């Protein structure tokens, strides 16, 4: 079985993100380049948006 892979651009860093037929709307996907969590906003066509993030402050 082959699935068609669609390449979409990460909205944060512009990296290629691969989605396929099994991808669902609302699914969360990590961008491997910038590590951001992306939400599949729509599936036909595929669009991504940045997933809401909890604030975190380890910083200092």
């Amino acid at each position, binding site marked *: 079985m082959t699935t068609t892979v669609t390449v979409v651009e990460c909205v944060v860093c512009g990296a290629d993100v691969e989605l396929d037929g099994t991808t669902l709307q609302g699914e969360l996907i990590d961008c491997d380049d910038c590590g951001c969590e992306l939400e599949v906003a729509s599936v036909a066509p595929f669009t991504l948006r940045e997933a809401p993030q909890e604030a975190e402050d*380890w*910083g*200092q």
Partner: protein
Amino acid sequence: MSDVRVAIVGGSGYTGGELVRLLLFHPHVQITQITSERFAGKLVAKAHPNLRGVTKLKFTSVAQLDACDVLFLCLPHGEAAKNWDRYAGLAPRVIDLSADFRLRDEAAYRFYYHNNHPRPDLLADFVYGIPELHREALRDARRVACAGCNATATILGLFPLYRAGVVLPQNTVVEVKVGSSEAGNRANEGSHHPERAGCLRSFSPTGHRHVAEINRELSVADKASVHFSATAIDMVRGAMATSHVFLNQSLTEKDIWKIYRDAYGNEPFVRIVKERDGLYRFPEPKLLAGTNYCDVGFEKDPSSDRVVVISAIDNLMKGSAGQAVQALNIMMGFEETTALAFPGLHPV
């Protein structure tokens, strides 16, 4: 003269502990209460083991606080403002070490703290706690908002040049290196030793909150706007700002010496540190641990109009508790250096 009676709220924390250490040796002060919810009823030395055998005082909870002459607030961001009326009711004079009342401009607060200020009505009441800039106002102050630690180092480093009007006020780049005690005494993933040790963590390349107070204080001649970043290093105490300013006129190093000497020649706690040789040509925070000094040095770039200003402090002293005691001394008419004479160690 009878002793001034002071209480310290948030006394189990790092700035609070430092205040206790200083005030226990202050000849005109009596500490009446020190609060901690976690340690209520326990010896103060339980939280601050350096004070073993030095004091038998115990923590109380905030709920048990009595009236006093001067109240010090050493609480996490937001707490002082939230419970202000309660605290203000306890003492005619309040010295707040948090960021809650440092700004005067609600919009700046909203921008940097991502929140509406809970008590904008109070913002005008506070004197900003850096004596080198506000000594006269401090004499009569009833409310003091101590400066941020990184802000203190940066402002004291740059103020003379900004006041003299000799720099491009919006071109300055400031790089601060800070120790781990800046973040207080609560453990978190980021403070876990195997991760935090040996680190060079760029925790705030842009957007640091202290920028608001820095720009306000440096806007003497013209509207100032600094480019700021902060990096955490493997150090517990100390903060050092390396600031790059650009002159708007031709000056020699001797000219700059004069500007700094004019500003700080009579200051008890600012030293100009600039030597041609030796190992300590410029300020070093390790020499300042436990002291109330801000050391300031500079070097003019011979091949450009840049001056590099180096300024260092102990964040828990000149950057918070020491600054608070200096403010107390000024407010109460005590000798300004009282309880702040410790000169620091070498080697260290």
